[in-house]
């Protein structure tokens, strides 16, 4: 009876083994080797690559990346929750509203970032608009700074936050909300005492879906941050192409993966599965 199941599951399992498990193992090994003369890896074994991660030279990068990812996550949840609430309460048109959220998300992250480049640059729409209205005389430096990167992250990942929260809200038993009102709770109290606590799994899923990719973001900071904002992703790219330092890159990757796995367990234990 389960023979079919075994056959069906094999291709995916093999693929995962080859493309996730094996590479992870390789990276693990690389991270404790030394940098080779021509950019490869060679003995001796060392843990100095991990040591470099707490080097003050790179420390700033990690702190900034974590801070930015945390800020993006917080903003996405704060902005996303009311929208998810709106869609869940919209009755017949919820499919339409959901599509409107999903649509920008799937149409090319790269292009959406470019759209903000177009808007924020010195000769872009926002600056020329403000100038022609006489509100400013010099263009505001809206692009190529940390703020622009944060904007790009929130813009990019907001749908990732809305969807899991909406999924939890939709599955909420409406009679619980009626019961709360029946027992004397005003609408705001119903929200804080019943809806929000029961939404916790969705919010947790949203948090991890925004935080981890934000932590490792590369193109957002490259396009919107200019050379001023170096995050973990840029560091990896840097060390990769110019320094060809595989062991260091591997060490950073392992740390990022560990962070992702830890957060994943923290969220999944309390909540429902996305899969």
């Amino acid at each position, binding site marked *: 009876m389960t023979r079919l199941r075994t056959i069906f*599951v094999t291709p*995916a399992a093999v*693929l995962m083994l080859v493309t996730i498990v094996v590479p992870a193992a390789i990276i693990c090994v690389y991270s404790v080797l030394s940098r080779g003369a021509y950019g490869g890896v060679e003995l001796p074994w060392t843990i100095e690559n991990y040591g470099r991660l707490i080097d003050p030279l790179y420390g700033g990068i990690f702190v900034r990346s974590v801070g930015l990812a945390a800020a993006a996550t917080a903003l996405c949840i704060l902005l996303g929750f009311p929208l998810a609430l709106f869609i869940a309460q919209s009755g017949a048109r919820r499919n339409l509203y959901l599509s409107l959220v999903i649509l920008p998300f799937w149409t*090319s*992250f790269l292009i*959406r970032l*470019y759209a903000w480049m177009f808007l924020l640059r010195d000769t872009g729409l926002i600056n*020329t608009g403000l100038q022609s209205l006489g509100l400013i005389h010099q263009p505001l430096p809206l692009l190529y700074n940390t703020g622009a990167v944060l904007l790009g992250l929130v813009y990019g990942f907001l749908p990732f936050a809305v969807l899991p929260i909406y999924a939890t809200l939709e599955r909420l038993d409406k009679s619980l909300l009626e019961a709360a009102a029946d027992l004397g709770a005003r609408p705001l109290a119903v929200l804080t005492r019943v809806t929000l606590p029961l939404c916790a799994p969705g919010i947790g899923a949203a948090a991890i879906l925004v935080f981890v990719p934000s932590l490792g973001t590369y193109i957002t900071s490259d396009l919107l941050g200019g050379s001023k904002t170096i995050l973990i*992703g840029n560091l990896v*790219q840097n060390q990769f192409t110019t320094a060809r330092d595989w062991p260091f890159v591997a060490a950073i990757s392992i740390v990022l993966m560990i962070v992702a796995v830890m957060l994943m367990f923290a969220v999944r234990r309390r909540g429902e599965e996305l899969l």
Partner: protein
Amino acid sequence: MKRGLEVYAIAIYAFLHLPLLILAIFSVNASRFTAWQGFSLHWYQAMFADRDLLESAGNSLAIAVASTALSTVIGTLAAYALWRRASNWLAGGLYLSLVTPEIVTGVSLLALFQWAFRYVDFRLGMHTVILAHVSFSIAYVVVVVLARLRGFDPALEEAAQDLGATEFTAFRRVTLPYLAPAVAAAAMLAFTISIDDYVITSLVAGVDSQTLPMVIYAMARRGVSPVLNAVSTTIVVLLGTLVLLSERLRRA
């Protein structure tokens, strides 16, 4: 509170959609500057005249078709297997692939390929890109198909077997037709993910195969250009239509 939410929703939707709409408007601006100087399609003409652009678009299309076909099949079968009996390992691995930053996935795949190429006479190229795309698309396919399976009554398959069908026949004649909309939706999703991917592709593509995102990225880094506006608008419209179709199917 309801009115407040409505106003808020309008604001957020504006935030999400206006930048792309503005880009689309300016893609038909005759002037290359922000000032409006009349309607013109010559940026689109320039776009079609750019050979590198067209070649990379062709590459992206080929890669997307191949990786979509593979990931949809593998992902659908995996989703069905997971539905029959949960597997923490498989589910966890798929979730991990969803959540891992792209740069980590790209770096580790590159490490895999470079290590493998010491023993096999291969180089980076379209095939490595396709493999990479299949690997990260599967999780999305599984999510979509599994969601549809959650609404399926297992008794239907049992009934089919009771009437003489083998396990596989029951799957093929009862479950698969039910899954068809979700599978189609998942395929379109996998397609859009593949077309759009930059980070992982750029790491594993090698020198011969340029994909569309890679070309777009290079252009974007050089700064804003009206041809890029035209390219962007075209892609957004095409992918957007595909995604809308996919959503329509998923809810059929």
